[in-house]
């Protein structure tokens, strides 16, 4: 498939840390996240969770489902449910951007597509630079914030437990 990017670092990563919900670690014991944009915020998820990144394919509307389900898409001949990550995370819906991408993740034996506004880059930070579970406002979404990283002075990335959020939405 020409419109897909398989994340190059995947193979190099230390697989011993699969169980970590927070992040994978690379050879230098750095935490590795995939950064993506929703609205004007950058988020990060465990890189291991993301199996593939593709350009948004044509979406088929599925009637009578929850609003955050955009529909179904065809990925290599398989039917994959596409989720509007903005709606899932409680953001407003805005115009689709050209930079939009679909992250493919596996949840409960099912491959799910997550539409995000853009991909930034793979973020690596040392373990000590990870600010764990900051005390935020009570709220269903803030519960899923597992930490914050600051790769440089201008950038702040909110690390979320995507799997948990999806599981909750699918319940």
């Amino acid at each position, binding site marked *: 498939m020409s419109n897909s990017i398989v994340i190059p670092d995947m193979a190099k990563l230390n697989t011993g840390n699969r169980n970590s919900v927070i992040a994978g670690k690379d050879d230098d014991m750095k935490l590795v996240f995939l950064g993506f944009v929703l609205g004007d915020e950058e988020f990060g998820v465990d890189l291991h969770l993301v199996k593939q990144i593709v350009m948004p394919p044509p979406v088929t509307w*599925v009637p009578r489902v929850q609003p955050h389900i955009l529909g179904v898409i065809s990925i290599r001949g398989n*039917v994959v449910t596409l*989720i509007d990550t903005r709606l899932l995370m409680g953001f407003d819906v805005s115009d689709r951007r050209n930079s939009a991408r679909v992250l493919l993740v596996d949840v409960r034996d099912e491959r799910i597509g997550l539409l995000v506004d853009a991909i930034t880059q793979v973020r690596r930070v040392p373990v000590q630079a990870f600010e764990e579970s900051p005390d935020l406002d009570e709220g269903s979404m803030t519960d899923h914030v597992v930490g914050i990283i600051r790769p440089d002075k201008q950038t702040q990335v909110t690390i979320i437990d995507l799997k948990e959020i999806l599981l909750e939405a699918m319940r």
Partner: protein
Amino acid sequence: MSKNSQGNKAMKEFLAEAQEFVESLSRNLIEIDKAVKTGEPDPDMVNEVFRGWHTLKGLSSTFGVEPLSLLAHNEESLLDDIRLGRKVFTPHILDSLFESIEEVTKILDIINESGDIKATGYRDNRTKTTPEQSPDSGGAPDYGKDDAESFIDPKSLIDAEVLEVLTEFEEHRLRINLQQGQAIYKMRIGFSLMSIDQELEDIKGRLRPIGEIITYLPSSESNDPDMLDIDILLALHQSWEDLEAALEGVGAGISTLVPGRDTPKAASDTMIPAPPTAEQPSDSSMTGIDSAVASEIESPVISERGLVKKQKEQLLSLRSVSQSVRVDIGKLDHLMNVVGELNIIRNAITKISEEMRSLSEQRELAIELHRVSRGFDRRLAEMQEGILEVRMVPVSQMFDRLSRMTRKMSRGVGKEINLVISGADTEVDKLIIEELSDPVMHIIRNAIDHGIEDAAERRAVGKPEFGTVALTAYQKGNHILIEVEDDGAGIDGEKILEAAVDNGYLSKEAAASLSEREVLNLIFLPGVTTTVKANELSGRGVGMDVVKTNISALSGVVEVQSELGIGTKFTITMPVTLAIIPALLVSVDENTFAVPLNTVAEALTISGADVNKVMGLETFTLRGQTLPLCRMDGFFGRPRHGAIPKSSRLLVASLGQRRLGLVIDELLGQQDVVIKPLGYSLDETRFFAGATDLGDQKLSLVIDTAAVIEEFFASNEDFTQPAAQAE
């Protein structure tokens, strides 16, 4: 990575193979169970069960599945004792044999679910003792061998040469037959090497009705390189004339080892002649290779006794290998996908050739292309059919499992149940069989538990004491029908109504107006039951509502008929296959959907003027009958206001006995579609059987007509009305 997938493959093969053993084991056990009730089980079958466990033991220790090999080992010893006459089949032993099969299934399930062949989650919770602990088995390996049966010593009657090559089991069978005073004959029959498999089977088939084949061995003396003489040791249970009749036309030299009452005096050297032309291989069919093979086979037979057995086993194993090939269903799915893709390409080609035809200068080429693509179409259809055929398995796969469970359940509740199976050779998609087992099981469980009365009650109403459950499968058009019918007490409509009202499904007034059929259908609602308390067998949280849901998920329908005091009949109607179906492509609100063709009776053009109203419901009069209408745009939550637009289309959908008019915008065509399942994340929508790729890179949803009809009639919402008017 590759190591992992290899392990996975091995595991799958192990599971498939083990599953096959379980199925044949249980088939044989059920036969034995039946036979035990009326007399002696067929020793051949007992031996086969023994061999089945033996193979399973070998298989599971090869793969390191310890709990299974341990279990198989125990069962093997038990069966060994039985086949050698040290034990007999008691109901208790039969129970434990059936239980063991359940245990194997459990172990296989655990392995399958955990994906780990070494999964340790299994515990044998049964109180059954292992042979080592059990007082009455195993301990003394030579128990009874010489004591119990020593009053007739085969050695005194039969040549040591013959006895030497018998296995322990064969010797035991010989002894039993001697005790029963049966005549024993040794027959030498020549077989052509070319066709020995079929011929030997044929002879065995002829001999079985009149006696017991103790063993058959390739003979050590032969003078024709194309022929293999086989010595058959037969215990004749019928008269000598029967034997002569059975072997008519076969060249057989018979020598009497132990004469029977009517053995002719001269029989010690009888020859039942072969017809002069048949059976003898013509010299012209012989080739150099054949004779080479023949001498290769024969020389060890002559040289060493020990090899004779090996030779025999080879004959057996060669045959079983050639019977079939086991294929992972995933591979077939893949092939089916490829055919689906080819279908898409075919559609594209057809489109191109149509476009070309409109260009005058390309006309000739276009006609040629059209002709070629027609040929391609036909081949593709053939291929599709072929793959579908491979996916088909006889429902006996499921029925065998069910009869095992039925036996267990009927013993559990202490009711004598006669399970009558017919149509077991009806073929259904493998996938459907897998998914259908549980719902059918549940229906049978209900029949045994609540349907069939206990013996005293049955006697009181003049029914036979044993209850009958009939399990029937047959094909009707593109559908498979599976019926479960019992001769029990029937379903009490009053109780059903009461339960439905109690559960708040309908008011007392509404209840009074329901037809008999509607009342019975209430049992498919969650929580509606006629029994007050659940017991161990039914009522463990799986109700008829789940049965219905599961069957609907496979685009099937389940219907129930019942007569109080006479019995109950459930009918399940399923499509023959789920993999690929002809479908109508329709457009609703600019979205393309596929509707399975077998659910649509006809398609009409309709406009607002054709619509009547009955109590606010939009209806259409079709040949004098009122057809309720469902506007699909409204049903899908995107209602457009106003009357039905001009030249809309109406699909008359029918399922079971219900009909509904589906109003759509446009009919786009007909096409065979490959249905791909939707993910769990879309479980909340029940209206789609899956999605299909029509070739434009975009998926189309396949409408589950059954679910739509059901929802339409169940729902209080009125989809026939524009949303604005509906409160």
